[in-house]
């Protein structure tokens, strides 16, 4: 894909990702996250990973975020009140975040591979859906099944924690 499109989608992701945090209206935050996910999906597709990209849209934008929106609306969350910002704490947080990013960027900048262009990816001869499928059910069979257990844990947790106790 052309670098032009990459920058568009990457920028879209970052801008709307920041929007998630900065927006005070929870609905706006949720929708920003949806757009951010769409940008991510586009980036996946640009790497010929159509399957992952589409799943990203289907699962996150299409299902998870709809449920988020649903809950935000049901709970009738209003826009967050402007509260006094604790300048010291925010400054500290920003300083730590900036320091970490600068360190990482510095290391990446001095990294030998980062100065040379990335070799073009070998064009996969296998359909990426087949590829993902066979990997998932052969090499990564065990993690795949464990993820099932993980989802079970999440289900139990949600039900237990959100169930109203009858007294």
């Amino acid at each position, binding site marked *: 894909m052309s670098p032009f499109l990459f920058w568009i989608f990457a920028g879209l992701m970052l801008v709307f990702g920041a929007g998630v945090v900065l927006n005070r209206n929870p*609905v706006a935050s949720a929708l920003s996250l949806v757009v951010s996910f769409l940008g991510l999906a586009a980036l996946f597709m640009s790497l010929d990973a*159509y399957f992952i990209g*589409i799943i990203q849209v289907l699962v996150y934008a*299409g*299902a998870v975020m709809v449920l988020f*929106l*649903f809950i935000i609306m*049901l709970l009738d969350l209003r826009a967050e009140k402007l509260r006094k910002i604790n300048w010291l704490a925010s400054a500290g947080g920003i300083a730590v975040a900036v320091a970490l990013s600068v360190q990482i960027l510095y290391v990446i900048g001095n990294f030998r591979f980062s100065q040379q262009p990335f070799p073009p990816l070998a064009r996969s001869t296998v359909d*990426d859906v087949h590829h993902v499928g066979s990997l998932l059910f052969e090499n990564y069979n065990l993690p795949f099944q464990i993820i099932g257990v993980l989802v079970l844990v999440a289900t139990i947790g949600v039900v237990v924690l959100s169930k109203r106790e009858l007294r």
Partner: protein
Amino acid sequence: MDYFLITTSLLKILGILFVIILPMVSYTIYAERRVSAFIQDRVGPNRVGPAGLFQPVADIAKLLFKEDFSPRNANTFYYWLAPCLALIPAIVTFAVVPFGSTLFGVPMVIADINVGILFVFAIASLGVYGIVLGGWASNSKYPFLGGVRSSSQMISYELSLGLAVIPIFLVVGQLRLTDVVRYQIDHGWMIAPFLGDWTNPAKWLLAIPMLVSFVVFSVAIFAETNRLPFDLPEAEQELAGGYNTEYSSMKFGLFFLGEYAAMITGSAIVVTLFFGAWHLPIPSWHGGFHWALIDGSGDGWRGILGGLFNIATFFAKVAVLLFVFIWVRWTLPRFRYDQLMRLGWVFFFEIALVNIFITAIILAYYPA
């Protein structure tokens, strides 16, 4: 840059949008009114043009010139955004549907991607945003209830929708929609495998889960498009019209268009998956009886006519399904909300799940 590809794609997009979908939407609305009138022993719209055929034009003119009213406490940005979000996904979904064979050697599908059906689901699942936001941004009680109902309904039925198609892809082995069509040309339609190795009993055994899939899928499509008997989000008697109550003029029109466009897309997907898409077998007695295949591969006029015939076949099939949609709407009563949820989660979800296993077992016993 491949300019040929871009030009033909643009032509296909414009053609499908302005020559086929939008007129089809208008005339589906017209058909809805005429058919409902027929079912209820009325006359229906018959004043504008011969047999009321220009009624859609009049409707659109009316919508455009109506006062565009928005409630004072509505959340303006989302209030405007919602109708667009309702219409766009329904149309974008058409990008991967193979609506014809080839025309002038160009395949009649806009984007033949290898995850076609997932693309359909992914984009269709975005359609719910328009409805939810419309209901929420109106800042009004009934629309809000409509929006909430719709989101929970769509999410519930998306599961059955997704699970119902898995057996098909187990059989075909590909997620690409053109491959599904190719399979159906070689082996017969999904629900009626009368072509190819049709004497093989395994093929007919497989048709049973396909039939189950078809039923589950179409019911789920009814729920996804908020059509009766599942039109709870816009149940007039309960919600005064539902999520679009506060909308007027063309914004209301966009919701309306979106709903019918979703119906057309849904029918198109059903046709593609279960009824052989653009394929219509013609009985032929040249050298013994067989089913002849008409497609756009011939030379000159033969090819062009064949291609056009395929497109026409596809949309004729879609039209038949649309008629069924309308027919159902005017003959069945509405479900109660809890019944709808129970049906989705307790009945169709399980059927679809079991169906996958049955298909897999049959395939394991009779490998292709």
